[in-house]
């Protein structure tokens, strides 16, 4: 039993993000423990992706704080949050289509040096980078496609590529935004295996998932958002039997 505040990779405290009058995220607090898979679920428009965007630095929070491994990261630019150890994937896959699969992964490897023109002037395609990038591709099972242009990959493979790119940052925390959506039943199964394997390697994962079956079986804990606010939090069993959650998903009984 861990003490409160102990070994938390991510701490989100009273975070809000408003767009004009719209409270996309409102006063939400939760935390992610080292090594766990935490699921962020909720109906459409609940504010899940906005949460990701604030944590990863696309937006500043309107109020509230975000701590990564004890140090405050909210309001930092996206690239320095990535450099501090937050790797993310996007709901709509976004490969660098003009590059090979391997080079897509290599972009993440140069991250510690991009601040300086001089430091980032070495050749990127050296044997060290190549070896590292290939290892990440191996991990997600894309080693056979390393030299193909990323634009020809199937959706399932693109989702794997996004995972490999995020891993290349050596992240303390992985944010997966609906990595299962649009995949066939069989691909969903393989992707779940992959996510579990990554967790076993010691990564901490925060994921957004629409597919309840996937979320319930992968995640140790779930945070449920609705209309920008936190509705419930707990183990899958606790969440499943929570009245408010059932109401938000199924509507109020007459």
């Amino acid at each position: 039993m861990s003490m409160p505040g102990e070994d938390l990779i991510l701490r989100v405290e009273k975070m809000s993000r408003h767009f004009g009058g719209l409270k996309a995220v409102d006063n939400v607090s939760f935390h992610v423990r080292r090594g766990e898979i935490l699921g962020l679920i909720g109906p459409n428009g609940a504010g899940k992706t906005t949460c990701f965007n604030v944590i990863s630095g696309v937006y500043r929070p309107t109020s509230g704080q975000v701590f990564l491994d004890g140090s405050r990261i909210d309001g930092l630019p996206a690239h320095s949050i990535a450099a501090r150890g937050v790797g993310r994937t996007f709901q709509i896959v976004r490969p660098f289509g003009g590059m090979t699969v391997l080079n897509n992964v290599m972009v993440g490897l140069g991250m510690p040096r991009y601040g300086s023109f001089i430091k980032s002037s070495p050749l990127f395609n050296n044997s060290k980078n190549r070896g590292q990038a290939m290892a990440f591709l191996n991990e997600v099972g894309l080693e056979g496609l390393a030299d193909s242009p990323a634009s020809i990959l199937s959706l399932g493979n693109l989702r794997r590529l996004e995972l490999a790119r995020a891993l290349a940052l050596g992240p303390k925390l992985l944010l997966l935004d609906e990595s299962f959506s649009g995949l066939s039943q069989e691909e969903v199964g393989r992707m779940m295996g992959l996510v579990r394997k990554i967790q076993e390697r010691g990564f901490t994962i925060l994921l957004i998932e629409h597919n309840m079956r996937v979320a319930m079986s992968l995640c140790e804990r779930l945070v449920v958002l609705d209309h920008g606010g936190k509705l419930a939090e707990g183990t899958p069993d606790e969440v499943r039997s929570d009245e408010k959650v059932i109401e938000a998903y199924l509507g109020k009984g007459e």
Partner: protein
Amino acid sequence: MQLLTEHLINGLAVGSIYALMALGLAMVYGILRILHVAHAGVYAIGAYVGLYTFQATDSFLVAIAVAMAACALVGVAIEKLVYYPLLKFPPYVPLIASIAIFLSIEELCRIVAGPYILGFPRRLALDSLTLGPVSLGGMQILVLLTSLVILLVLWFISDKTEVGLAMQATSQDMAMASAMGVDTKRIISITFALGSAVAAVAGVLVGIYYNQVYPTMGAVPAYKTLAIIVVGGLGSIPGAVLAALLLGLAEALLIGYAAIPLPRDALAFIAMIIVFMIRPQGLLGKKTR
């Protein structure tokens, strides 16, 4: 036959200067989706700085280096002070700003240097080289060699180095590049610095080649290079280089050699119109979805 080869070489020299100018424009368009008309102003500044440095030092290499450094600073200043703050507006806003900067630079050159045509000192007369029946002027050798070196260096940086990979990533998807740890603001500045330094080289070379440096020297190139990057395929750097070389050759052959009664500068726009009609994505551009 000999006349034809001379026109060909001249066309290649002019085309490679166009290529140097269009490169910066294509790089800026690729990364910010802005039509950087003021790039031609940067090129004029490069010509002036190069000329004054050459008068002071009598060295071509020093003149090029100082002009490149000065233009890199000007380019980054334009990006940081004008374009970056305007990125959140629709693309015509930075375009209008760009035209305003261009006109201001022309006026600034007029105020500082006077409305005259200045020439490079004759001291730069270079030996010519004769290869069989073909005679290459010293100027042409200088222009061709310098352009070739610059093009190779730029290709190497953008295709082989880590900073080049970051530039590719930023121009393909800026938000994604940030999520991968790329400091995109920095990469944008580096892109402007490189593109503007290359424009400076073009400015100095034109100044030497035609022996003319004057405040409005950027006016025709401003619009001609826009036509070039459209013909090459907006945002495509190899496309811009190819279109520039083809234009230089076409001008030399059709107007110079074949003496077709058209204004030389009209050719670029005729090519642009034809491209719009039959291949809107440009020579090497990708079809947009």
